[in-house]
């Protein structure tokens, strides 16, 4: 019964194509592929904004005494005065760099773009379960983006309490001079939460209920697994942030005191609620990247994913652990030390599934036939960088060591190894990898490789020394470190980091150029340029509205490369009929 409905809608979608106006087709589209591309452009824009904020910060950190900010004159006096970035503007930069990158760039790029694009294609359905909600999930992000950008230009400037929004600093305008800007960002967060929840409902429902025939749970590509688990995390974590954010807005505007001690409220409650959301959020930001990496590594190595089931189990256990470790962000917060004890142990155990994943990725490369194209390079880069990020996490998980390195640049290094070296590397890889499917053209390989090496080298020059700066004891979010006796002697390192950061930012424009240039001038892509097995590659590039004339039937696992029974090629598409190829190939 349900099938017939699905089929019918599929047909309806296919026929609708010819009658749609431009507005319905490209702006208020309910096609998951168009929505994904909208998300992609939106998030690339905010990636640039977030990067720009970081560049301003790096200038200030490296040359706090110089003034003379290049183009400082274009900023109003309330941000940059006499060529000096003002501390309040710096706080806004710190806060909004983190907020924009997490909520408006990386999270929607991982989930909004790729869950939208890949779930229906890789599962073999015509579209998402609820296409109109899907459209809404993009359009809810638009007011969020506008509020965020506009908040820089209101009296008092943008939010300046850090992306973690710790109350009471975030709740009391009289202590920061930031009033409206903070409220606008919180309102943006509520919109982001709405978008995220609507998206997640869609992803979960589609994955549970709309898989193509033969697409059993254990035949789902790891990308889908990771996006599915991510959606569950977002579904359960985002509402808590929304609730907390709304309480914080009330504290600011209508005189409640949920998080204000003078009215009986509790600052630590904010931290608990924030990190109850925040730690699953961290995994929302990395799990999809792990999925893309598994996929790209498998394709690029021409080998099945090593230990597919272990990978799935590791994903699930990371997600589960994600809900019981949030306290490790609060070891020095005045939380009950007994809680610290339990959170230490649970936190350290995240290293186990992370190790499983890393070794399995290496296992996937082992005895492979590595095709080192740009996407593959970024995927390998992900494994290398994620390993560093994961290992540096062990230092923080160990509570006694965390006493010293908490809130220092060691943490900054750690999160950037995971979020930039991890998530963003995987995202670049994913864009290089799926670009031909999205736009029907290949991105330029030479530019791609130059982009990879620039990014890889400069990234490490930027963030590896931060471990050292953190060991020296440089605190996070410090506007000017030169006044501290124990921070003498790190000026050169900071300048080096800043120069490399400028280079890293610039290399992003090479990517942007490649992206837009290839739209028009890139080599035309065939349906399956990478000889990949998953379903999306068995459609034309780009796929038509509605994806499939006829829903495919799945006969194989997701990553069947170099199967010994297939001789004329080294891959076996998921929907290839076994009787056409070989009777033995249907396993797993």
């Amino acid at each position: 019964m349900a099938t017939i409905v699905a089929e019918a809608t599929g047909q309806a979608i296919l026929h609708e194509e010819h009658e749609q106006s431009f507005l319905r087709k490209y702006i208020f589209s309910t096609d998951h592929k168009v929505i994904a591309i909208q998300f992609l452009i939106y998030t690339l824009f905010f990636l640039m904004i977030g990067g720009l904020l970081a560049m301003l910060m790096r200038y200030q950190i490296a040359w706090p005494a110089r003034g003379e900010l290049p183009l400082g004159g274009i900023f109003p006096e309330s941000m940059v005065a006499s060529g000096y970035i003002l501390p309040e503007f710096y706080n806004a930069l710190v806060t909004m760099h983190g907020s924009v990158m997490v909520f408006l760039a990386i999270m929607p790029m991982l989930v909004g773009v790729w869950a939208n694009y890949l779930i229906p294609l890789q599962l073999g359905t015509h579209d998402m379960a609820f296409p109109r909600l899907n459209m809404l999930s993009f359009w809810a992000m638009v007011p969020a983006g506008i509020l965020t950008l506009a908040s820089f230009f209101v009296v008092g400037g943008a939010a300046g309490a850090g992306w973690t929004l710790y109350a009471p600093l975030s709740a009391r305008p009289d202590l920061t001079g930031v009033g409206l800007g903070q409220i606008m960002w919180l309102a943006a967060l509520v919109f982001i939460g709405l978008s995220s929840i609507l998206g997640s409902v869609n992803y979960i429902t589609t994955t549970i209920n709309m898989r193509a025939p033969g697409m059993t749970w254990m035949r789902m590509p790891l990308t889908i697994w990771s996006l599915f688990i991510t959606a569950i995390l977002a579904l359960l974590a985002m509402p808590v942030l929304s609730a907390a954010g709304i309480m914080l807005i009330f504290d600011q505007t209508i005189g409640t005191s949920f998080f204000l001690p003078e009215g009986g409220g509790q600052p630590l409650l904010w931290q608990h609620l924030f990190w109850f959301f925040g730690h699953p959020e961290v995994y929302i930001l990395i799990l999809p990247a792990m999925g893309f990496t598994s996929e790209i590594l498998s394709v690029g190595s021409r080998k099945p994913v090593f230990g597919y089931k272990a990978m799935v189990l590791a994903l699930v256990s990371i997600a589960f652990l994600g809900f019981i470790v949030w306290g490790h962000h609060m070891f020095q917060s005045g939380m009950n030390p007994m809680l610290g004890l339990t959170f230490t142990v649970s936190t350290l155990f995240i290293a186990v599934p992370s190790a499983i994943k890393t070794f399995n990725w290496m296992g996937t490369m082992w005895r492979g036939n590595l095709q080192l194209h740009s996407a593959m390079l970024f995927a390998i880069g992900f494994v290398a960088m994620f390993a560093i990020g994961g290992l540096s996490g062990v230092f923080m998980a160990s509570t006694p060591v965390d006493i010293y390195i908490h809130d220092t640049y060691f943490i900054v290094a750690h999160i950037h190894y995971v979020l930039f070296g991890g998530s963003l590397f995987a995202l670049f890889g994913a864009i290089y990898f799926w670009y031909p499917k999205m736009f029907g053209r290949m991105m330029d390989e030479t530019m791609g490789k130059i982009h990879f090496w620039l990014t890889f080298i400069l990234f490490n020059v930027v963030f590896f020394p931060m471990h050292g700066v953190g060991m020296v004891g440089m605190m996070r979010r410090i506007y000017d470190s030169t006044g501290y006796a124990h921070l003498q002697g790190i000026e050169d390192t900071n300048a080096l980091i800043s120069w490399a950061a400028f280079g890293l930012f610039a290399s992003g424009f090479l990517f942007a150029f490649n992206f837009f240039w290839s739209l028009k001038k890139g080599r035309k892509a065939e349906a399956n340029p990478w000889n990949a097995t998953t379903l999306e590659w068995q459609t034309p590039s780009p796929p038509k509205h509605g994806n499939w004339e006829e829903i495919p039937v799945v006969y194989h696992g997701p990553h069947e490369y170099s199967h010994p029974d297939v001789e004329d090629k080294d891959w076996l598409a998921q929907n290839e009929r076994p009787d056409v190829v070989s009777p033995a190939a249907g396993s797993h």
Partner: protein
Amino acid sequence: MSEAGGHAASAADDHAHEHPKYMLIWLYLAILTILEVLVAFLAIPKWMIVVSLLIMAVWKALLVALYYMHLKFEPNRLRLVALAPLPAVAIMIIAIMMEYV
């Protein structure tokens, strides 16, 4: 595999005709509500009031979920979806409460 769809459809038809006793549940809920209000003002120790009120609240919530929301008649897989957030809720509240231990 086509049986699967058929099975789902027939399952839906089955309980369509055997209506759970909606009015009985309604009476049940109404009586529990009255009981709750009465218990709240009894002159017994506060903790006894709290415990009995919580039990009755959960009881009522279960009645609504099982009968009005049909969880009693749904496949186990859907029940699993409905139960999914409860561990997270429990972990959150227990851990935050540990600040007071």
